[in-house]
């Protein structure tokens, strides 16, 4: 299919076109750029919810219930479930949609699994583009699910407007894990599996950590309790997400939008500049020589980079 045709299909909400479009942004950077250029003017309408937390917290089950509640409220939903690529084999097992399969035939729902591929640093550019595709396709709510502890969780703020951090009692030292960065990015905390007896302790642990933060803030992240299996608390979670969206629109919208635009521009420049320099070095057969010098400890990488930029290297 041609890019223009696919873009047209995406804008009409056609599922096959959306699926093809996401494949393009995953595989082919130059085509992706043309596609996103066409779709970009039609983006910016969806509310993007990032959902993250340790494995076993019940994120996928919770999302399934959230989708049902959004559908009940007349909203269309797109989901991007991100799972890690194995650094050893390059393969990935994408099992998040198992819990959402009943919804796969719902016309107002689109679910796509994505692997992180060679993006150990966080959310892949392809994921951000996939969000834009679902946005342009007219989805009201887009949920981006990420797993694991570390950078990719923190990176979700670059994509999402409302970040929901999900926890559950009995996962071990989960509070320690969230102190390292997750506390700062959460707009809403959810303690899932709240029917378990030690759920209140998890809530109190979270409260204790949150209280360490004395800075006055216009939005204090609330802690909600859910039982994803039964759907308990899910409606309140959606209300809270909506409240946060209203808060953002009233208080911080302009600032956030500008910050996001700036981050995206910087990343785009970095990508373009890097690949154009590397391509040029490869074309001129200089890359190997430079690498050899670095390997031989004649030149350090930062100095090499500077010399390349100043065109001082032969």
């Amino acid at each position, binding site marked *: 299919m041609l890019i223009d045709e696919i873009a047209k299909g995406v804008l009409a909400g056609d*599922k*096959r076109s*959306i*699926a*093809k479009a*996401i*494949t*393009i942004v*995953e*595989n*082919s*950077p130059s*085509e992706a750029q043309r596609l996103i250029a066409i779709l970009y003017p039609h983006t910016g309408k969806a509310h993007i919810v990032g959902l993250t937390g340790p494995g076993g917290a019940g994120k996928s089950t919770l999302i399934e219930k959230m989708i049902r509640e959004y559908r009940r409220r007349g909203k269309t939903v797109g989901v991007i479930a991100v799972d890690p*690529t*194995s650094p050893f*084999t*390059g*393969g*990935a*097992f*994408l*099992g998040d*949609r*198992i*819990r959402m*399969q*009943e919804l*796969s*035939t719902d016309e107002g729902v*689109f*679910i*796509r*699994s994505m*692997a992180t*591929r*060679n993006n150990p640093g966080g959310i892949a550019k392809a994921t951000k583009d996939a969000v834009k595709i679902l946005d342009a396709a007219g989805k009201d709510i887009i949920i981006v699910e990420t797993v694991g502890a570390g950078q990719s969780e923190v990176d979700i703020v670059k994509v999402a407007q409302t970040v929901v951090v999900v926890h559950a009692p009995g996962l071990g030292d989960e509070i320690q894990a969230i102190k390292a960065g997750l506390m700062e990015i959460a707009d809403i905390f959810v303690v899932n599996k709240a029917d378990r007896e030690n759920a209140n302790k998890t809530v109190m642990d979270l409260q204790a950590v949150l209280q360490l933060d004395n800075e006055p803030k216009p939005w204090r992240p609330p802690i909600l309790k859910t039982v994803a299996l039964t759907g308990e608390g899910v409606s309140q979670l959606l209300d809270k997400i909506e409240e946060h969206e209203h808060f953002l629109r009233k208080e911080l919208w302009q600032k956030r939008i500008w910050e996001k635009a700036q981050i995206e521009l910087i990343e785009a420049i970095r*990508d373009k500049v*890097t*690949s154009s320099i*590397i*391509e040029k070095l490869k074309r001129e057969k200089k890359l190997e020589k430079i690498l050899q010098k670095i390997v031989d400890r004649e030149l350090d990488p930062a100095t090499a980079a500077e010399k390349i930029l100043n065109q001082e290297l032969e």
Partner: protein
Amino acid sequence: MQDEGTSVRKIRVLIAKPGLDSHDRGAKIVARALRDAGMEVIYTGLRQTPEQIVETALQEDVDVIGLSILSGAHMTLFPRIMELLREKGLTDVLVFAGGIIPEEDIPELKKIGIKEVFGPGTPTEKIVKYVLENAPKRES
């Protein structure tokens, strides 16, 4: 660094369990073998309707579908899946099957477009090799 600006097209595979049986050890072993061979494997979980499987294949834009069935309902479920794939225009997807499928049913299944059937005890290497060699080459 060799990945800068370019990326390799990964083979995306849907491993699906149509029908009502509740054993998916075989499906999971195959899923894992394909993942270890560098593919992106989406697993549907148990008890999927043909509609769910085809819709998932469409949304995930997979190159390959592996159907695992132990219940004996393959002669009703597989034709329905193949019909829906055609309806949705997913004609370039490679479909193979595995599980308990009697020898005498295989010709009929191949006629409707199931490209290969793997019985119990098939070494995973054989399935991996088959998928690597037969997954459709698509430009994007």
